[in-house]
């Protein structure tokens, strides 16, 4: 990583600079006990996520990025260290920060309407309907509210999943390789969608992916993880304006930088 460039780039990003720290991860360690010995997955992870930013975490597969995300969401307990969100230690999952699953985690036994209304709890029907329809419109699924997941394409299911997450008005969205199960064209379309939704709603988004191009395309900053036991190697600023073009020199430089850190030979 070049020493001068990131600083210059940070100056060009006033929005994220002004925003405060939303999630602070400090010296997080996570070990999984197995029959033979404890497996050290996270080995002192430090990371600060700023309010309203789009942060991507990339790393080699099996390095523990999903584990880190699960810990941040409160699904798994950390072995030591601390994860604070708005200065409060995370102990359990909360509708304030919603997890969007790798493959669609929407419920096949519920219609689109019922899926999106799942987290809304008890409220008068009219109010619930108003909220659900608003998010159906946001993700562009008008007319499909009565459809069941089995009747939808992969991309549409992913939209339902986003709408279900957004309907409870969380501050933070955790995205665990959300486009992994989609075909290449739908993936491209959904990346555009998530950027649009992120801009419209201003949520803090944390994306875990092994796709470096996806990370550079979407994120304000890219955190690069090392192999297991994992730490954050470095966090790179992405100065590019949106919409981004993967042919831009800066885009390619950034990708090269990340591949270099990961120690991956990019050319086939």
């Amino acid at each position, binding site marked *: 990583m070049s020493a001068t460039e990131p600083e210059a780039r940070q100056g060009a990003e006033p929005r994220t600079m002004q925003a405060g720290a939303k999630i602070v991860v400090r010296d997080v360690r996570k070990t999984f006990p197995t029959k033979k010995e404890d497996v050290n997955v996270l080995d002192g992870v430090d990371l600060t996520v700023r309010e309203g930013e789009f942060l991507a975490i990339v790393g080699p597969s099996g390095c523990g990025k999903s584990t880190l995300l699960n810990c941040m969401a409160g*699904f798994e307990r950390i072995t030591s260290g601390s994860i604070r969100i708005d200065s409060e230690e995370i102990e*359990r999952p909360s*509708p304030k920060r919603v*997890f969007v699953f790798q493959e669609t*985690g929407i419920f096949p036994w519920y219609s689109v309407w019922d899926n999106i209304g799942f987290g809304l709890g008890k409220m008068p029907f009219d109010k619930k309907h108003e909220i659900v329809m608003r998010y159906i419109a946001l993700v562009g699924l008008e007319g499909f509210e009565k459809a069941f997941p*089995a009747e939808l394409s992969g991309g549409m299911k992913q939209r339902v999943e986003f709408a279900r997450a957004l309907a409870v008005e969380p501050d933070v969205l955790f995205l665990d390789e959300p486009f992994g199960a989609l075909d290449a064209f739908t993936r491209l379309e959904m990346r555009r969608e998530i950027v649009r939704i992120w801009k419209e709603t201003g949520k803090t988004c944390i994306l875990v992916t092994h796709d470096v191009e996806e990370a550079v395309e979407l994120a304000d900053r890219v955190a690069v993880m090392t192999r297991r036991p994992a730490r954050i190697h470095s966090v790179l600023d992405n100065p590019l304006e949106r919409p981004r073009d993967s042919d831009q020199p800066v885009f390619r430089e950034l990708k090269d930088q990340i591949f270099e850190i990961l120690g991956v030979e990019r050319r086939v």
Partner: protein
Amino acid sequence: MSPRALLLGTVGFAIFILSWHLATLGNQIGDLPGPAMTVRGLVQIAGEGVLWENVVASVFRVAWGFCLAAGIGIPLGMAFGWYPRLRETFNPLVQSLRPISPIAWLPFAVILFGGIRMSSDLAAIFLLFLSAFFPIVTASTSAVASLDLKYIRSARNFGVDGLAFFRRVVLPASLPQILTGLRLALGIAWVVVVAAEMLGVESGLGYQVMDSRNALRMDFVSAAMVVIAAIGLMLDMAMARVEATALARRGMSRR
């Protein structure tokens, strides 16, 4: 059913009936009856009214045994599925009792429910309960134990827990497997009821088979077997229908 499947199915029946006919040519009543004899026998017992009483008796016992097994087996199995400690404690026991044919319980069933003879329906219902109970418990246990982690996490993420979690996530997620278990259990119960009724009761289709044999009316035996097959088939089709209706909206019926 497609026209081809219908045609081929009919051909299968035709081959069987023709072979059956040729193999039993010239047989008298008391020998192995042929298809024509079976049909005549069927018309005769259907006209006597006793057949319908026996049908009702068998269906009644199966219905009770099956419903009791579902009523106890589904909640118990789901509890085993959810609580690993409970499963580890009782599942080996359940799996050890499962291979015992329900018919082997007959002597105890008679002592427990029937007095000296198995005259009461209770003993038969107990056997049918046992036959349906194990497949239902096993299916319900595995349905809940294999619940997708992402459904559990989604629900927790949205703050849905307790009874709402059970009703909105656990139950619908495990429904397909439980329904398959129920269908299997009903099929087994129908097989067992005939066997159970051969031993000591004085009504039901199993009794009809034994009674006809004692009267040396083999044509009535084969006629009763045809009725047993027809009702078994109808029960299975009804369960398949319930399954398809319950799961239709998930797009699973199209499989």
